């Protein structure tokens, strides 16, 4: 039963991943990628990582819908309607050759490498194992992830906004309330 579920999820992940670059409507492309991620989350749950699988599902739904907003905004034919065919691609043959070569290399490595034996039994509570290691031996990883996320947040806002302090508060930085296109909810 679990083997059947594995095959269903694996074929779903690969097929919907392939459909991402074949469909014409941008909304359908985003939903295809979302389906691929949901299948991947299901596979992670099958491997015994319940918390990580559900977190992958949770985060990927949010990320894909935010990505859908940007896809619709920045693609020229978001609904795939109209006479212009969705052929916004270049170097198709060389890209296909490179990716086929990559698949052959990775697949050969996966099949031919002498994988070691399993190093021990699975823990009773993988979530607890993850929490304990993040708070202990892998605390450095956690700190770096936190800093990277903070830097990404600040960097993304700075890159995307083309207004600064002087646009908001005037030339002498004294104008209150600030000159924003939409007022916020708490009157800052």
């Amino acid at each position, binding site marked *: 039963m679990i083997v059947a579920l594995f095959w269903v999820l694996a074929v779903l992940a690969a097929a919907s991943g392939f459909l991402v670059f074949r469909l014409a409507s941008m*909304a*359908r492309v985003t939903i295809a990628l979302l389906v691929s991620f949901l299948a991947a989350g299901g596979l992670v749950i099958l491997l015994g990582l319940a*918390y990580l699988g*559900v977190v992958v599902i*949770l985060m990927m*739904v949010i990320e894909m*819908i935010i990505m859908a907003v940007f896809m619709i905004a920045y693609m020229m034919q978001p609904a795939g309607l109209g006479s212009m065919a969705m052929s916004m691609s270049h170097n198709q043959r060389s890209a296909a050759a490179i990716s086929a070569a990559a698949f052959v290399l990775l697949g050969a490595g996966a099949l031919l490498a002498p994988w070691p034996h399993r190093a021990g039994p699975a823990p009773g509570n993988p979530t607890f194992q993850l929490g304990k290691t993040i708070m202990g031996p892998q605390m450095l990883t956690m700190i770096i992830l936190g800093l990277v996320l903070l830097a990404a947040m600040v960097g993304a806002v700075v890159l995307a906004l083309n207004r600064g302090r002087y646009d908001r508060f005037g030339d002498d930085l004294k104008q209150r309330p600030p000159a924003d296109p939409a007022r916020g909810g708490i009157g800052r």
Partner: protein
Amino acid sequence: MNWPRQEWERLMVANAPPWAVLLVPVILAGFAFAAAAADGILTARAAGGRLTGAVAAAPLAEVARLLTGQRRVTPAEDRVLWRSGLIAVPVAAALAAVVIPFGSVTVSRMSVGVVWFNAMEVLTWAAVWVAGWGANGTLSLVGGYRFVAQGLAYQLPLMLALICAAAGAQSLNVAQVVTAQAHVWFAVWMPAAFAVYLAAVYAFSFLGPFSYPAGRDLAGGVMAELSGPDRLMLQAGRWLLLTAGAGMAVPLFLGGGAGPLLPAWVWSAVKTLAVLAVLVWARRRLPTIRADRYAELAWVVLIPLTIVQALVVSLVVLTRGGVQL
């Protein structure tokens, strides 16, 4: 970490047989019907009409009317996406309700039930946006985008409120969250998390003060292009989501089936109905708020508030080895 669990352990070990999963949507629909009927009764009373039995059964009549209604077809609609988005709303509510224990009986023994509830409720983001997109209509699309904006505002405070409840119980398992409230309910010493959770229940079912995606200024927004069974899917989905949220508030913040004298499942039902009554009553008292008024509030006020609440919970759990008030 010594929770006095003995008197609860014997109650929370009952696990339902696998076929009981099919009962979950039925029970959820029952509670949702009660909430919709109460809403109808309050509307009739506010309008000054007579309260007959037909008013209380109005949701059933509405279901019958919509089931036999005709679907609206718009030009160049995205039929696959539209239908799947509409179906996904009630399905998400039913999946989220799978982890809610009924009294002392749990259908799912998932070790990450709290995160599962969050993940299933997030599916509404995808469902409502896709339902707004698929109709190929301007007002419908604007309604779908409004739901995404609302989602960005409510999601992080909701996640942090759920983290508060899980941290208080030191587990993501819903049964252990119930067991950890053997002495004091979480709603008593995590009031900020409870209040944020109830507001988020309104937000993810887009009813009440957060019905901005289906607002009257958009001729119904996401519901503008819906009729017949499509409309039933979304309308029923909203009430099912509200009910699932109210049902989850009981094991997370109100002690599950704990209570004197009566059996546990009666207490679960009573508490769920009480939360639903509060939500349905308050829905008519609060005006619909625009997203640009609460988005900044959610990010700048509610997120620090829930983080401080989580800090308080963590300090209590660490220093006292448990709350025994």
